[in-house]
């Protein structure tokens, strides 16, 4: 079997070739079918003829190793792989549109960019949790499914942290795509999930300004310019780019991975909650920093890279999103204190944790205006102030904490939805003292425990008297 010379109707490894798809030059892609009930399938066959780029040949082997280990809606489902005369992979044919199709429409409105960015960041977090770093994130490798989710494709340059890195062993130089490759990747580090956050920052910059932050460099020497030269701030190119979006983009494009968001989930969180983004000088800048401070950053990166390498494996563990569901009802002060203590302990154990404090206003279906209490004060902003007061002594930097008050008829369901949509890793929730009514109806905390997608810590104030 050879990549060339295949005809529609041929059968390869039990799959019938239906139609050749012109997706990329490095491999042949065929829409294939096996059984009537299979979803649409795609067969990828690398071009191995003389003159083929060896990096793509090894990359195909890397993809054969990595794709079967991935699952979930953010990757094509693996079906089969093997080698007859020539290797092949069969996977789900994703129904949707490549992000490359959007390039003609750039620049896009900030809100559209943020919404797209949040979806891509969610997809990245999903593969990072499976210990895979994409390392070649770019518009042509991102597909917007017709169902709305983002799927990532082409794991030919990717790294699975539990498998041998056959690409790095074969090719000593940087492996990636010029406009998108992260600084540490240029220096040979292929073990940092935050390299994908950098590439996402390039995409966000490109989509909101219409220009690539580092242009389209052609050689490895030009690639390195991003190590010491900052990009022009997006607001200098597009005055209506909001400061919060510039903050997130420039933070993603920081030379040192440690300055970026600790996880893609934390970036997705910020992209979904613009009003909560902590804006620093980064967000306000309208021109580049001086060359000297950039050079300093670069020297700093060079010095700290070896230590960086050792800590990467624990990066996700160290950087959970913690959600504290706080009950602010009068009489629950002791519970509030116990919650603060519990949250403080969890924060101590996770140096890059992100804390989100939430409070749900139980909405009576009959209420006419839930936002006004009888004194006419805005209940929502009062609750927000109370949340901030509750958290003011917790050891979290300003960019690491957010506050949310929302109204819902069913608080438990609202908390669970929030946890799922924001990739929460750990819920801390208070349980009020037991009462016959609560035993009968079931408490909010018990419903959250039963249905949560993550770890839940239930906090109870120590009882002062026997009940």
């Amino acid at each position, binding site marked *: 079997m050879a990549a060339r010379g295949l005809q529609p109707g041929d059968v390869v490894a039990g799959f019938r070739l239906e139609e050749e798809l012109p997706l990329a030059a490095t491999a042949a892609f065929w829409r294939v079918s096996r059984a009537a009930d299979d979803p649409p399938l795609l067969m990828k066959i690398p071009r191995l003829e003389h003159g083929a780029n*060896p990096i793509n*040949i*090894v990359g195909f*082997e890397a993809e*054969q*190793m990595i794709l*079967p*280990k991935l699952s979930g809606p953010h990757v094509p489902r693996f079906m089969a792989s*093997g*080698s007859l005369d020539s*290797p092949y992979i069969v996977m789900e044919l994703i129904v949707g549109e490549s992000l490359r199709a959007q390039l003609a429409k750039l620049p896009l409105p900030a809100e559209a960019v943020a919404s797209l960015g949040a979806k891509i960041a969610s997809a990245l977090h999903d593969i990072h949790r499976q210990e895979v770093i994409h390392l070649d994130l770019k518009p042509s490798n991102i597909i917007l499914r017709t169902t709305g989710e983002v799927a990532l494709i082409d794991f030919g340059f990717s790294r699975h942290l*539990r*498998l*041998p890195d*056959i690409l790095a*062993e*074969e090719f000593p130089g940087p492996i990636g795509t010029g406009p998108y490759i992260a600084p540490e990747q240029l220096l040979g580090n292929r073990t940092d999930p935050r390299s994908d956050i950098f590439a996402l920052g390039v995409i966000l910059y490109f989509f909101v300004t219409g220009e690539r932050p580092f242009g389209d460099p052609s050689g490895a020497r030009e690639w390195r310019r991003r190590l010491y030269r900052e990009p022009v701030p997006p607001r200098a190119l597009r005055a209506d780019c909001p400061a919060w979006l510039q903050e997130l983009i420039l933070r993603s494009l920081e030379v040192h991975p440690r300055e970026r968001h600790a996880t893609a989930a934390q970036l997705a969180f910020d992209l979904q909650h613009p009003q909560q983004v902590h804006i620093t000088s980064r967000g306000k800048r309208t021109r580049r920093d001086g060359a000297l401070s950039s050079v300093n950053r670069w020297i700093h990166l060079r010095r700290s890279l070896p230590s960086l390498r050792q800590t990467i494996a624990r990066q996700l563990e160290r950087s959970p999103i913690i959600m504290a569901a706080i009950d602010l009802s009068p009489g629950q002060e002791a519970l509030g204190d116990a919650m603060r203590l519990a949250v403080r302990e969890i924060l101590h154990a996770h140096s890059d944790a992100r804390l989100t404090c939430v409070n749900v206003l139980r909405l009576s279906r009959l209420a006419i205006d839930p936002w006004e209490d009888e004194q006419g004060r805005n209940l929502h902003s009062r609750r927000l102030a109370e949340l901030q007061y509750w958290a003011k002594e917790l050891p979290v930097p300003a960019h690491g904490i957010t506050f949310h008050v929302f109204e819902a008829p069913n608080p438990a369901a609202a908390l669970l939805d929030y946890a799922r949509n924001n990739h929460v890793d750990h819920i801390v929730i208070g349980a009020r003292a037991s009462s016959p009514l609560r035993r009968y109806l079931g408490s909010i905390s018990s419903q959250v425990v039963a249905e949560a997608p993550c770890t839940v810590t239930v906090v109870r104030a120590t009882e002062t008297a026997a009940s």
Partner: protein
Amino acid sequence: MRIALLSDVHANREALSACLAHAQACSVDRYIFLGDYVGYGADPGWAVDTVAAHIEAGAIAVLGNHDAAVVGSDSDLNDTARVAIAWTRTQLTPQQCDFLRALPLSAKQADSLFVHASAWAPEAWDYVTDARAASRSFDATQQRTTFCGHVHVPEIYHLSGTGKIASFTPIAGTAIPLTPQRRWLAILGAVGQPRDGIPAASYAILDEERTTLTYMRVPYDAAGAAAKVRAAGLPAVLSLRLLAGR
């Protein structure tokens, strides 16, 4: 077919029992033993009988250097190992010695080679601890994949189509795809005397259908095995090793 690959049992009954039970729980269909059933540990007779019983049931077993030393010359071994070999000789029946004497140096199945130390001159008991030794082994066989033990530290060497050799320390429980584009040389850890700092017993499962290799770590009663080594009057270092995994 799922095949359990077990190497360097070294007369450690507690460790081998734990690995066999683990493999059974993993629905293994077949067993291949990569040598060194005796030496160092306190249950050489039991170890030989257990391997022999598995061969009756279709398993494959090859000869290790300690097995060869018990029934032949022990001049290649260090002093501690020689003390253990001398003691082992007093423990084995003539039938058990005959069994060891009859073991082959290597075995082939499909595109795999099974050998105790290296495909290069198996009877020279070369240690594959670097790319040069791995290269000697790759050059000495046509088989695509080689499985061996002898070093007591898990490692996988792979040879790309362009002739580059690299190695990787496998992570227990992760299935490693043995892709068809390259050749593989898998060094198994030791069942009965791990030396990579982890005292848990080490073996691996080869999944022929998926062509993946998964290294396993099985905690076992190392303190019990170490106590038996001491009680048998074997050198103290041999019991301490079991506790430290070094």
